[in-house]
């Protein structure tokens, strides 16, 4: 396959192995910078496992992977955990901690303050002051997405079910933010989204840069070739 520096993930006949079985039908795909990859599939098809693989987790696989994102470029947001935290994080702290991934401590607080002031109205001051343990699933997801989309400076976003718990207004705001990031010339963000929801706004606006991937579950008895 012909590759350029613009490619973020390229694979052919790729599938993840669970024991000796392939999790999904072999996949061949080329993803370039500035694309939105919408990963779809039935429950158990391997969508989240594929994201975990991309987040540089060691997962056994078949096929050839010519390019995969560098760990330093990745922001991985797993499915929201509805567990309680011992430390009483506020939602604002949760958002602002995304900036900790790649910044030096000295510049952190300054950048956090500047960026927190840019938060959209869908993550308002009242919500930001809430304790993570007391917040609803939707409020928690807003905090995580606000951090991932506004504060992180990573170029590859791996978002697992980011629309879970969100109301329709927040879903639209999320898609607007993803569009803004992908279309921005500076950061050239590539987003991998696992979602069962239709991403109509993204698919219509991005057209050729919107790439759906449908993972097809294989029955467990199919052995690897």
């Amino acid at each position, binding site marked *: 396959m012909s590759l350029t520096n613009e490619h973020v993930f390229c694979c052919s006949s790729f599938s993840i192995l669970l024991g000796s079985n392939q999790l999904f039908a072999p996949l061949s795909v080329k993803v370039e910078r500035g694309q939105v990859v919408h990963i779809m599939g039935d429950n158990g098809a391997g969508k989240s496992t594929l994201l975990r693989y991309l987040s540089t987790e060691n997962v056994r696989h078949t096929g050839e992977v010519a390019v995969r994102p560098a760990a330093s470029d990745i922001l991985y947001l*797993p499915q929201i955990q509805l*567990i309680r*935290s*011992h430390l*009483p*994080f506020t939602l604002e702290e949760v958002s602002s901690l995304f900036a900790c991934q790649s910044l030096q401590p000295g510049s952190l607080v300054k950048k956090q303050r500047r960026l927190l002031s840019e938060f959209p109205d869908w993550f308002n001051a009242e919500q930001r002051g809430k304790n993570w343990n007391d917040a609803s699933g939707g409020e928690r997801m807003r905090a995580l997405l606000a951090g991932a989309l506004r504060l992180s400076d990573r170029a590859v976003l791996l978002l697992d079910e980011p629309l879970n718990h969100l109301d329709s207004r927040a879903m639209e705001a999320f898609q607007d933010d993803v569009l803004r990031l992908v279309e921005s010339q500076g950061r050239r963000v590539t987003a991998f989204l696992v979602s069962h929801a239709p991403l109509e706004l993204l698919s219509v606006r991005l057209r050729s840069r919107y790439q759906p991937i449908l993972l097809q579950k294989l029955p467990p008895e199919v052995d690897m070739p």
Partner: protein
Amino acid sequence: MIELLAIYAWTFPVVGLMGALLAFCGAHLATQGRTLQSLSIAQGAELGSLVLMIVLFSSVASEIELASWIGIPGAVGFAFFCGFLAEKILLLNLGSRSTLLFSLWIILLAATQLLVALHPALESHFSRVAVGDIATLTRSESQILTLILICLGGIVFGKRNQYLYVSFADAVLGVRSNGLGFKIPLLLVFLPALGTWAMGFLYTCAAMFIPTTLLSLSVRAGAREHIFRCCLVGLLAPLIGLYLSLHYFSGVPTAPILILVCAITTIGVVIVDSLKRLVSVQS
């Protein structure tokens, strides 16, 4: 009394700094679900310190003070080994991980007891690393420990946001970081091991987890504020405890007094917080 306090003048900064740093560790380790792993690590440090003592006493060491310092690599080395075992257990996809970690601690505890039973001459050292007779720290030990703790405190302060991110990723995102990787071994292994060597297993575990668990009863938003309050209690409570121990309870071991004072101080803070909240709600 002033003379007595003068003798232990260098013990005060050690217990204060150690208390604050251990409280910081405890807040993060509890958030990362590493409480039982910490027990094994502290127990491993106790065992390692004793093993090295046996090696030294049976071979080269003749000066007690030298042997005492050389216990640190033993404590840190065994703590790393036990931390590694516990990390492997934590990575297992099993529902019984807590029970496995508890079993590991019990095995290490039994090994320590067996070692002491086989070497009765070690009774006093065992007493120090188990119960922790803080008042037996020599002046030179205290001075060097103070310097080490100031340096470690600087490192911890500089990396506080990274530590908070690791705890956040673990508790909120469910992304577990490698405990023995470059990110947190200072919190997970080195400080608890140093604490166990200097202050004993009992005090180390108490200083790590009493402030953070009791303060979490006082529901307030803000992880940074919670950690700051833990460190403040961790700093002040041992100072008060050591003063009370030297002044009023000189006949009993220092560590239990410090632990009780730490618990009472933290409960006091929780009660004051609750009263403040009640008053603000009523007004």
